[in-house]
Protein backbone atom coordinates (compact mmCIF):
# COMPACT_ATOMS: atom_id res chain seq x y z
CA UNK A 1 0.00 0.00 0.00
CA UNK A 2 2.75 2.44 0.97
CA UNK A 3 4.48 1.73 -2.31
CA UNK A 4 1.39 2.74 -4.27
CA UNK A 5 1.12 5.95 -2.22
CA UNK A 6 4.83 6.72 -2.65
CA UNK A 7 4.63 5.90 -6.35
CA UNK A 8 1.92 8.49 -6.91
CA UNK A 9 3.38 11.24 -4.71
CA UNK A 10 2.94 14.85 -5.83
CA UNK A 11 6.19 15.89 -4.17
CA UNK A 12 8.62 17.08 -6.82
CA UNK A 13 11.88 16.02 -5.19
CA UNK A 14 14.34 13.38 -6.35
CA UNK A 15 14.59 10.12 -4.40
CA UNK A 16 18.08 11.07 -3.24
CA UNK A 17 16.87 14.44 -1.90
CA UNK A 18 14.04 12.75 0.01
CA UNK A 19 16.35 10.14 1.54
CA UNK A 20 18.94 12.78 2.56
CA UNK A 21 16.20 15.05 3.94
CA UNK A 22 14.75 12.18 5.99
CA UNK A 23 18.10 11.07 7.42
CA UNK A 24 19.38 14.57 8.25
CA UNK A 25 16.02 15.55 9.77
CA UNK A 26 16.11 12.38 11.82
CA UNK A 27 19.48 13.47 13.21
CA UNK A 28 18.19 17.00 13.78
CA UNK A 29 15.21 15.60 15.70
CA UNK A 30 17.54 13.49 17.85
CA UNK A 31 19.67 16.54 18.69
CA UNK A 32 16.77 19.00 19.02
CA UNK A 33 14.53 20.06 21.93
CA UNK A 34 10.74 19.96 22.33
CA UNK A 35 10.23 22.93 20.04
CA UNK A 36 12.37 21.22 17.38
CA UNK A 37 10.17 18.16 17.69
CA UNK A 38 6.97 20.19 17.30
CA UNK A 39 8.51 21.96 14.28
CA UNK A 40 9.41 18.57 12.73
CA UNK A 41 5.90 17.19 13.33
CA UNK A 42 4.28 20.24 11.71
CA UNK A 43 6.70 20.47 8.74
CA UNK A 44 6.61 16.78 7.82
CA UNK A 45 2.86 16.44 8.39
CA UNK A 46 2.29 19.34 6.00
CA UNK A 47 4.66 17.78 3.42
CA UNK A 48 2.97 14.37 3.75
CA UNK A 49 -0.50 15.87 3.27
CA UNK A 50 0.73 18.06 0.40
CA UNK A 51 2.27 15.01 -1.29
CA UNK A 52 -1.20 13.48 -1.66
CA UNK A 53 -1.76 11.30 1.42
CA UNK A 54 -5.39 11.59 2.48
CA UNK A 55 -5.76 13.27 5.95
CA UNK A 56 -7.93 10.43 7.28
CA UNK A 57 -5.36 7.82 6.24
CA UNK A 58 -2.55 9.88 7.76
CA UNK A 59 -4.42 10.14 11.09
CA UNK A 60 -5.03 6.41 10.99
CA UNK A 61 -1.33 5.83 10.36
CA UNK A 62 -0.44 8.03 13.33
CA UNK A 63 -2.66 6.04 15.67
CA UNK A 64 -0.68 2.83 15.07
CA UNK A 65 2.51 3.95 16.91
CA UNK A 66 0.39 5.53 19.65
CA UNK A 67 -0.45 1.99 20.76
CA UNK A 68 3.22 1.55 21.67
CA UNK A 69 4.05 5.10 22.72
CA UNK A 70 1.19 5.65 25.19
CA UNK A 71 1.96 2.64 27.44
CA UNK A 72 5.62 3.67 27.34
CA UNK A 73 5.02 7.25 28.46
CA UNK A 74 2.61 6.11 31.18
CA UNK A 75 5.35 3.94 32.65
CA UNK A 76 7.90 6.76 32.34
CA UNK A 77 5.61 9.24 34.12
CA UNK A 78 5.17 6.77 37.00
CA UNK A 79 8.72 5.57 37.60
CA UNK A 80 10.67 8.80 37.07
CA UNK A 81 11.26 11.37 39.86
CA UNK A 82 10.01 11.91 43.45
CA UNK A 83 7.50 14.79 43.55
CA UNK A 84 3.94 13.59 42.88
CA UNK A 85 1.54 15.81 40.95
CA UNK A 86 -1.45 13.51 40.69
CA UNK A 87 -1.98 10.08 42.28
CA UNK A 88 1.19 8.03 41.34
CA UNK A 89 2.25 10.35 38.50
CA UNK A 90 5.40 12.35 39.20
CA UNK A 91 6.40 15.79 38.00
CA UNK A 92 9.81 14.82 36.60
CA UNK A 93 8.31 11.72 35.03
CA UNK A 94 5.62 13.78 33.35
CA UNK A 95 8.25 16.10 31.83
CA UNK A 96 10.35 13.16 30.58
CA UNK A 97 7.22 11.42 29.24
CA UNK A 98 6.18 14.59 27.37
CA UNK A 99 9.67 14.93 25.81
CA UNK A 100 9.77 11.24 24.94
CA UNK A 101 6.34 11.47 23.34
CA UNK A 102 7.35 14.46 21.19
CA UNK A 103 10.66 12.90 20.21
CA UNK A 104 9.05 9.57 19.24
CA UNK A 105 6.23 11.24 17.42
CA UNK A 106 8.49 13.57 15.45
CA UNK A 107 10.78 10.65 14.49
CA UNK A 108 7.75 8.70 13.32
CA UNK A 109 6.57 11.68 11.27
CA UNK A 110 9.97 11.82 9.56
CA UNK A 111 9.82 8.10 8.91
CA UNK A 112 6.29 8.41 7.51
CA UNK A 113 7.53 11.17 5.25
CA UNK A 114 10.11 8.77 3.84
CA UNK A 115 7.77 5.83 3.32
CA UNK A 116 4.85 7.80 1.90
CA UNK A 117 6.87 9.82 -0.60
CA UNK A 118 9.77 7.54 -1.57
CA UNK A 119 9.54 4.19 -3.30
CA UNK A 120 11.97 1.41 -2.39
CA UNK A 121 13.74 1.59 -5.79
CA UNK A 122 14.35 5.30 -5.15
CA UNK A 123 15.83 4.46 -1.74
CA UNK A 124 18.04 1.75 -3.29
CA UNK A 125 19.20 4.13 -6.03
CA UNK A 126 20.11 6.85 -3.56
CA UNK A 127 22.22 4.37 -1.58
CA UNK A 128 24.19 3.35 -4.68
CA UNK A 129 27.39 5.14 -3.73
CA UNK A 130 27.57 3.75 -0.19
CA UNK A 131 26.30 0.20 -0.72
CA UNK A 132 28.04 -2.67 -2.58
CA UNK A 133 26.42 -3.14 -5.98
CA UNK A 134 25.63 -6.83 -5.43
CA UNK A 135 23.58 -5.95 -2.32
CA UNK A 136 21.53 -3.41 -4.26
CA UNK A 137 21.16 -5.84 -7.15
CA UNK A 138 19.81 -8.58 -4.87
CA UNK A 139 17.55 -6.11 -3.05
CA UNK A 140 16.10 -4.76 -6.32
CA UNK A 141 15.48 -8.22 -7.76
CA UNK A 142 13.93 -9.38 -4.49
CA UNK A 143 11.67 -6.35 -4.53
CA UNK A 144 10.50 -7.15 -8.08
CA UNK A 145 9.99 -10.80 -7.09
CA UNK A 146 7.87 -9.66 -4.12
CA UNK A 147 5.75 -7.50 -6.46
CA UNK A 148 5.14 -10.53 -8.69
CA UNK A 149 4.36 -12.82 -5.74
CA UNK A 150 1.94 -10.32 -4.20
CA UNK A 151 0.15 -10.15 -7.57
CA UNK A 152 -0.03 -13.95 -7.61
CA UNK A 153 -1.37 -14.09 -4.04
CA UNK A 154 -4.17 -11.65 -4.92
CA UNK A 155 -4.99 -13.58 -8.09
CA UNK A 156 -5.15 -16.97 -6.34
CA UNK A 157 -7.08 -15.56 -3.35
CA UNK A 158 -9.62 -13.89 -5.64
CA UNK A 159 -10.11 -17.19 -7.48
CA UNK A 160 -10.61 -18.98 -4.16
CA UNK A 161 -13.03 -16.35 -2.86
CA UNK A 162 -15.03 -16.57 -6.09
CA UNK A 163 -15.57 -20.24 -5.29
CA UNK A 164 -16.46 -19.63 -1.62
CA UNK A 165 -12.99 -20.62 -0.41
CA UNK A 166 -13.20 -18.50 2.73
CA UNK A 167 -16.87 -18.99 3.61
CA UNK A 168 -16.06 -20.22 7.13
CA UNK A 169 -13.02 -20.71 9.34
CA UNK A 170 -12.47 -24.37 8.37
CA UNK A 171 -12.78 -23.68 4.62
CA UNK A 172 -10.57 -20.64 5.09
CA UNK A 173 -7.78 -22.71 6.68
CA UNK A 174 -8.07 -25.26 3.92
CA UNK A 175 -7.96 -22.61 1.19
CA UNK A 176 -5.04 -20.86 2.85
CA UNK A 177 -2.99 -24.06 2.87
CA UNK A 178 -3.83 -24.49 -0.85
CA UNK A 179 -2.78 -20.93 -1.49
CA UNK A 180 0.64 -21.49 0.12
CA UNK A 181 1.05 -24.73 -1.81
CA UNK A 182 0.15 -23.18 -5.19
CA UNK A 183 2.26 -20.13 -4.43
CA UNK A 184 5.32 -22.27 -3.79
CA UNK A 185 4.92 -24.07 -7.11
CA UNK A 186 4.19 -20.83 -8.95
CA UNK A 187 7.20 -19.11 -7.40
CA UNK A 188 9.49 -21.80 -8.85
CA UNK A 189 7.92 -21.40 -12.29
CA UNK A 190 8.13 -17.63 -12.00
CA UNK A 191 11.79 -17.83 -11.01
CA UNK A 192 12.48 -19.83 -14.15
CA UNK A 193 10.65 -17.29 -16.34
CA UNK A 194 12.41 -14.43 -14.56
CA UNK A 195 15.76 -15.96 -15.35
CA UNK A 196 14.80 -16.45 -19.05
CA UNK A 197 13.59 -12.82 -19.23
CA UNK A 198 16.88 -11.55 -17.84
CA UNK A 199 18.86 -13.73 -20.20
CA UNK A 200 16.73 -12.46 -23.10
CA UNK A 201 17.63 -8.92 -22.16
CA UNK A 202 21.42 -9.42 -22.18
CA UNK A 203 21.79 -9.63 -18.38
CA UNK A 204 25.42 -9.31 -17.35
CA UNK A 205 24.91 -8.51 -13.67
CA UNK A 206 23.75 -4.92 -13.77
CA UNK A 207 20.51 -3.34 -12.59
CA UNK A 208 19.96 0.29 -13.59
CA UNK A 209 19.76 2.77 -10.74
CA UNK A 210 18.80 6.38 -11.33
CA UNK A 211 21.30 8.17 -9.12
CA UNK A 212 21.08 11.87 -9.90
CA UNK A 213 22.93 14.69 -8.18
CA UNK A 214 20.98 17.02 -5.93
CA UNK A 215 19.78 20.21 -7.57
CA UNK A 216 20.42 23.64 -5.99
CA UNK A 217 16.71 23.89 -5.11
CA UNK A 218 16.81 20.54 -3.32
CA UNK A 219 19.92 21.47 -1.32
CA UNK A 220 18.21 24.71 -0.20
CA UNK A 221 15.05 22.82 0.84
CA UNK A 222 17.06 20.29 2.88
CA UNK A 223 19.10 23.03 4.57
CA UNK A 224 16.04 25.18 5.27
CA UNK A 225 13.99 22.40 6.87
CA UNK A 226 16.88 21.20 9.00
CA UNK A 227 17.68 24.75 10.09
CA UNK A 228 14.09 25.29 11.22
CA UNK A 229 14.21 22.02 13.21
CA UNK A 230 17.59 22.64 14.83
CA UNK A 231 17.16 26.42 15.45
CA UNK A 232 15.24 26.15 18.79
CA UNK A 233 18.01 23.90 20.14
CA UNK A 234 20.64 26.43 19.04
CA UNK A 235 18.76 29.20 20.92
CA UNK A 236 18.65 26.95 24.01
CA UNK A 237 22.44 26.55 23.91
CA UNK A 238 22.94 30.32 23.40
CA UNK A 239 20.69 31.18 26.37
CA UNK A 240 22.45 28.63 28.59
Amino acid at each position, binding site marked *: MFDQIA*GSTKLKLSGKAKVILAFTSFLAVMLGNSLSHIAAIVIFSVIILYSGVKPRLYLKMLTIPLLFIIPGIIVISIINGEERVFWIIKKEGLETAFNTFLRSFSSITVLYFLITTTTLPEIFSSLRKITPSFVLEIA*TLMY*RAIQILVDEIFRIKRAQEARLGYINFKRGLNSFSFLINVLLIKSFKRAEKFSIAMEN*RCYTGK*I*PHMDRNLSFREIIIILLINTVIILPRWFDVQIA
Partner: protein
Amino acid sequence: MFRLHDVHYYYDDGTHALKGISIEINKKRTVIVGNNGAGKTTLLMHLNGLLKPKKGYVEYRGKKIRYDKKSLIELRKEVSLVFQNPDDQIVAPTVEQDVAFGLVNIGIEDFEERVKEALEIVGLKGYEKRLCSSLSFGEKKKVAIAGVLVMKPRVMLLDEPTSGLDPKSKKEFTEILEGIDSMLIITTHDMDFAHEFANEIIVMNNGRIVEKGLPEVVFLRDLEKYGLRSPVVVEIYKSLGLNEKLPRKIEDLIKIIKQQRA
Protein backbone atom coordinates in the same frame (compact mmCIF):
# COMPACT_ATOMS: atom_id res chain seq x y z
CA MET B 1 17.85 -12.76 -42.34
CA PHE B 2 17.06 -16.12 -40.66
CA ARG B 3 17.44 -19.56 -42.13
CA LEU B 4 16.41 -22.67 -40.22
CA HIS B 5 17.75 -26.05 -41.30
CA ASP B 6 15.79 -29.13 -40.24
CA VAL B 7 15.25 -27.78 -36.72
CA HIS B 8 13.83 -30.18 -34.15
CA TYR B 9 13.04 -29.34 -30.57
CA TYR B 10 11.75 -31.54 -27.72
CA TYR B 11 10.76 -30.25 -24.30
CA ASP B 12 11.76 -32.15 -21.14
CA ASP B 13 8.27 -33.64 -20.85
CA GLY B 14 8.78 -35.29 -24.26
CA THR B 15 6.66 -32.86 -26.31
CA HIS B 16 8.05 -32.73 -29.84
CA ALA B 17 7.44 -29.02 -30.41
CA LEU B 18 9.31 -28.49 -33.70
CA LYS B 19 9.44 -31.30 -36.23
CA GLY B 20 12.10 -30.59 -38.80
CA ILE B 21 11.52 -26.92 -39.58
CA SER B 22 13.40 -25.68 -42.65
CA ILE B 23 12.50 -22.14 -43.62
CA GLU B 24 13.88 -18.77 -44.60
CA ILE B 25 12.48 -15.67 -42.89
CA ASN B 26 13.46 -12.35 -44.38
CA LYS B 27 10.37 -10.21 -44.94
CA LYS B 28 10.12 -7.02 -42.87
CA ARG B 29 6.79 -7.97 -41.30
CA THR B 30 6.43 -11.70 -40.93
CA VAL B 31 3.49 -13.07 -38.99
CA ILE B 32 3.37 -16.66 -37.76
CA VAL B 33 -0.12 -18.03 -37.16
CA GLY B 34 -1.25 -21.35 -35.79
CA ASN B 35 -3.41 -22.87 -33.10
CA ASN B 36 -2.30 -23.50 -29.50
CA GLY B 37 0.64 -25.87 -29.27
CA ALA B 38 1.56 -25.44 -32.95
CA GLY B 39 5.12 -24.48 -31.98
CA LYS B 40 5.01 -20.72 -32.74
CA THR B 41 6.59 -19.55 -29.47
CA THR B 42 9.17 -22.34 -29.53
CA LEU B 43 10.16 -21.27 -33.04
CA LEU B 44 10.44 -17.64 -31.94
CA MET B 45 12.63 -18.60 -29.00
CA HIS B 46 15.06 -20.30 -31.38
CA LEU B 47 15.57 -17.09 -33.32
CA ASN B 48 17.34 -15.25 -30.48
CA GLY B 49 19.02 -18.30 -29.01
CA LEU B 50 16.79 -18.74 -25.96
CA LEU B 51 16.33 -22.33 -27.10
CA LYS B 52 18.95 -24.43 -28.83
CA PRO B 53 17.74 -26.91 -31.46
CA LYS B 54 18.05 -30.55 -30.43
CA LYS B 55 18.74 -31.30 -34.08
CA GLY B 56 19.46 -28.99 -37.02
CA TYR B 57 20.65 -25.38 -36.77
CA VAL B 58 19.63 -21.76 -37.16
CA GLU B 59 21.46 -19.17 -39.26
CA TYR B 60 21.23 -15.44 -38.67
CA ARG B 61 22.53 -13.13 -41.42
CA GLY B 62 24.33 -16.00 -43.07
CA LYS B 63 26.12 -17.23 -39.93
CA LYS B 64 25.25 -20.19 -37.76
CA ILE B 65 24.05 -19.08 -34.32
CA ARG B 66 26.60 -19.96 -31.63
CA TYR B 67 25.42 -20.63 -28.09
CA ASP B 68 28.33 -19.40 -25.96
CA LYS B 69 27.48 -16.51 -23.63
CA LYS B 70 29.35 -13.83 -25.57
CA SER B 71 27.84 -14.76 -28.94
CA LEU B 72 24.36 -14.92 -27.42
CA ILE B 73 24.67 -11.42 -25.94
CA GLU B 74 25.81 -10.13 -29.34
CA LEU B 75 22.83 -11.88 -30.99
CA ARG B 76 20.33 -10.55 -28.43
CA LYS B 77 21.57 -6.99 -28.95
CA GLU B 78 20.27 -7.35 -32.49
CA VAL B 79 17.38 -9.78 -32.03
CA SER B 80 15.08 -9.00 -29.10
CA LEU B 81 12.08 -10.99 -27.97
CA VAL B 82 8.93 -9.57 -26.35
CA PHE B 83 7.08 -12.24 -24.38
CA GLN B 84 3.33 -12.78 -24.51
CA ASN B 85 2.85 -12.08 -20.80
CA PRO B 86 4.49 -8.76 -19.88
CA ASP B 87 4.95 -9.96 -16.28
CA ASP B 88 7.36 -12.56 -17.67
CA GLN B 89 9.33 -9.81 -19.38
CA ILE B 90 9.47 -7.03 -16.79
CA VAL B 91 12.42 -7.62 -14.49
CA ALA B 92 12.83 -4.29 -12.67
CA PRO B 93 10.49 -2.56 -10.23
CA THR B 94 10.06 0.81 -11.95
CA VAL B 95 9.26 1.62 -15.58
CA GLU B 96 12.48 3.60 -16.07
CA GLN B 97 14.65 0.86 -14.54
CA ASP B 98 13.00 -1.81 -16.62
CA VAL B 99 13.30 0.02 -19.93
CA ALA B 100 16.96 0.82 -19.18
CA PHE B 101 17.74 -2.76 -18.09
CA GLY B 102 19.08 -4.05 -21.42
CA LEU B 103 21.03 -0.86 -22.15
CA VAL B 104 22.87 -0.92 -18.81
CA ASN B 105 23.74 -4.56 -19.29
CA ILE B 106 25.36 -3.94 -22.66
CA GLY B 107 27.38 -1.11 -21.11
CA ILE B 108 25.37 1.99 -22.05
CA GLU B 109 25.19 4.08 -18.87
CA ASP B 110 23.89 7.26 -20.49
CA PHE B 111 20.39 5.95 -21.08
CA GLU B 112 17.98 8.65 -19.91
CA GLU B 113 17.26 10.20 -23.30
CA ARG B 114 16.87 6.82 -24.98
CA VAL B 115 14.49 5.63 -22.27
CA LYS B 116 12.35 8.76 -22.64
CA GLU B 117 12.33 8.38 -26.42
CA ALA B 118 11.24 4.72 -26.22
CA LEU B 119 8.49 5.52 -23.72
CA GLU B 120 7.26 8.33 -25.95
CA ILE B 121 7.02 5.97 -28.93
CA VAL B 122 4.80 3.55 -26.99
CA GLY B 123 2.71 6.39 -25.55
CA LEU B 124 3.95 6.20 -21.96
CA LYS B 125 5.55 9.63 -21.70
CA GLY B 126 5.84 10.65 -18.04
CA TYR B 127 5.62 7.07 -16.72
CA GLU B 128 9.34 6.85 -15.89
CA LYS B 129 8.97 6.81 -12.11
CA ARG B 130 5.84 4.62 -11.99
CA LEU B 131 6.03 1.21 -10.34
CA CYS B 132 5.50 -1.61 -12.84
CA SER B 133 3.19 -3.34 -10.37
CA SER B 134 0.77 -0.40 -10.53
CA LEU B 135 0.35 -0.53 -14.33
CA SER B 136 -2.55 -2.04 -16.26
CA PHE B 137 -2.01 -5.08 -18.49
CA GLY B 138 -1.89 -2.93 -21.66
CA GLU B 139 0.56 -0.51 -20.08
CA LYS B 140 2.79 -3.39 -18.97
CA LYS B 141 2.77 -4.66 -22.57
CA LYS B 142 3.88 -1.23 -23.73
CA VAL B 143 6.68 -1.17 -21.13
CA ALA B 144 7.82 -4.58 -22.37
CA ILE B 145 7.95 -3.25 -25.95
CA ALA B 146 9.74 -0.05 -24.85
CA GLY B 147 12.34 -2.19 -23.05
CA VAL B 148 13.13 -3.86 -26.35
CA LEU B 149 12.73 -0.80 -28.59
CA VAL B 150 15.27 1.12 -26.51
CA MET B 151 17.95 -1.37 -27.61
CA LYS B 152 17.28 -0.37 -31.26
CA PRO B 153 17.35 -4.01 -32.38
CA ARG B 154 17.61 -5.05 -36.02
CA VAL B 155 14.88 -7.65 -35.45
CA MET B 156 12.02 -7.66 -32.94
CA LEU B 157 10.29 -10.92 -32.12
CA LEU B 158 6.84 -10.43 -30.62
CA ASP B 159 4.90 -13.29 -29.06
CA GLU B 160 1.15 -12.61 -29.29
CA PRO B 161 1.42 -8.83 -28.89
CA THR B 162 -2.33 -8.22 -29.20
CA SER B 163 -3.57 -10.97 -26.88
CA GLY B 164 -5.58 -9.82 -23.87
CA LEU B 165 -6.03 -6.29 -25.20
CA ASP B 166 -9.30 -4.42 -25.67
CA PRO B 167 -10.09 -3.17 -29.21
CA LYS B 168 -8.84 0.37 -28.46
CA SER B 169 -5.53 -0.86 -27.03
CA LYS B 170 -5.21 -3.31 -29.93
CA LYS B 171 -5.55 -0.45 -32.40
CA GLU B 172 -2.97 1.58 -30.46
CA PHE B 173 -0.64 -1.39 -30.50
CA THR B 174 -1.00 -1.92 -34.22
CA GLU B 175 -0.14 1.75 -34.75
CA ILE B 176 2.92 1.43 -32.50
CA LEU B 177 4.08 -1.64 -34.41
CA GLU B 178 3.49 0.06 -37.76
CA GLY B 179 5.80 2.86 -36.64
CA ILE B 180 8.69 0.53 -35.80
CA ASP B 181 11.57 0.42 -38.29
CA SER B 182 13.04 -2.92 -37.23
CA MET B 183 12.14 -6.19 -38.88
CA LEU B 184 9.19 -7.69 -36.99
CA ILE B 185 8.45 -11.37 -36.58
CA ILE B 186 5.15 -11.80 -34.77
CA THR B 187 3.21 -14.82 -33.57
CA THR B 188 -0.53 -14.42 -33.17
CA HIS B 189 -3.95 -16.05 -33.11
CA ASP B 190 -5.48 -12.82 -34.30
CA MET B 191 -6.10 -13.52 -37.99
CA ASP B 192 -7.50 -10.05 -38.71
CA PHE B 193 -4.37 -8.44 -37.31
CA ALA B 194 -2.17 -10.88 -39.25
CA HIS B 195 -3.98 -10.16 -42.51
CA GLU B 196 -3.81 -6.41 -42.05
CA PHE B 197 -0.22 -6.23 -40.87
CA ALA B 198 1.90 -8.92 -42.51
CA ASN B 199 4.12 -8.93 -45.60
CA GLU B 200 4.43 -12.65 -45.22
CA ILE B 201 2.34 -15.27 -43.41
CA ILE B 202 3.70 -18.50 -42.01
CA VAL B 203 1.13 -21.06 -40.88
CA MET B 204 2.24 -23.63 -38.33
CA ASN B 205 0.45 -26.78 -37.35
CA ASN B 206 1.60 -29.49 -34.96
CA GLY B 207 5.28 -28.43 -35.02
CA ARG B 208 5.49 -28.03 -38.79
CA ILE B 209 5.29 -25.21 -41.32
CA VAL B 210 2.25 -25.94 -43.45
CA GLU B 211 1.80 -22.71 -45.44
CA LYS B 212 4.01 -19.76 -46.28
CA GLY B 213 3.44 -16.79 -48.54
CA LEU B 214 1.71 -13.47 -49.09
CA PRO B 215 -1.41 -12.89 -46.94
CA GLU B 216 -3.50 -12.44 -50.09
CA VAL B 217 -2.52 -15.94 -51.16
CA VAL B 218 -2.34 -17.84 -47.86
CA PHE B 219 -5.63 -16.58 -46.46
CA LEU B 220 -7.56 -17.60 -49.57
CA ARG B 221 -6.56 -21.20 -48.93
CA ASP B 222 -8.49 -23.53 -46.63
CA LEU B 223 -7.07 -22.94 -43.16
CA GLU B 224 -9.89 -24.65 -41.27
CA LYS B 225 -8.11 -28.00 -41.54
CA TYR B 226 -5.41 -26.48 -39.27
CA GLY B 227 -7.99 -25.26 -36.75
CA LEU B 228 -7.80 -21.65 -37.96
CA ARG B 229 -10.47 -19.33 -39.25
CA SER B 230 -10.03 -16.86 -42.08
CA PRO B 231 -9.86 -13.12 -41.39
CA VAL B 232 -13.25 -11.35 -41.47
CA VAL B 233 -12.24 -9.41 -44.60
CA VAL B 234 -11.46 -12.67 -46.39
CA GLU B 235 -14.72 -14.31 -45.26
CA ILE B 236 -16.79 -11.40 -46.63
CA TYR B 237 -14.67 -11.21 -49.78
CA LYS B 238 -15.17 -14.92 -50.45
CA SER B 239 -18.90 -14.90 -49.68
CA LEU B 240 -19.50 -11.95 -52.03
CA GLY B 241 -17.45 -13.61 -54.77
CA LEU B 242 -15.52 -10.42 -55.54
CA ASN B 243 -13.01 -10.33 -58.38
CA GLU B 244 -10.82 -7.44 -57.23
CA LYS B 245 -7.51 -7.95 -55.43
CA LEU B 246 -8.14 -9.09 -51.83
CA PRO B 247 -8.01 -5.91 -49.67
CA ARG B 248 -6.12 -5.84 -46.36
CA LYS B 249 -8.40 -3.59 -44.35
CA ILE B 250 -12.14 -3.70 -43.79
CA GLU B 251 -12.34 -0.03 -44.86
CA ASP B 252 -10.87 -0.96 -48.26
CA LEU B 253 -13.34 -3.80 -48.62
CA ILE B 254 -16.24 -1.44 -47.89
CA LYS B 255 -14.92 0.90 -50.63
CA ILE B 256 -14.86 -1.96 -53.14
CA ILE B 257 -18.42 -3.00 -52.23
CA LYS B 258 -19.66 0.61 -52.53
CA GLN B 259 -17.94 0.98 -55.92
CA GLN B 260 -19.57 -2.20 -57.16
CA ARG B 261 -23.00 -1.07 -55.98
CA ALA B 262 -22.54 2.31 -57.66
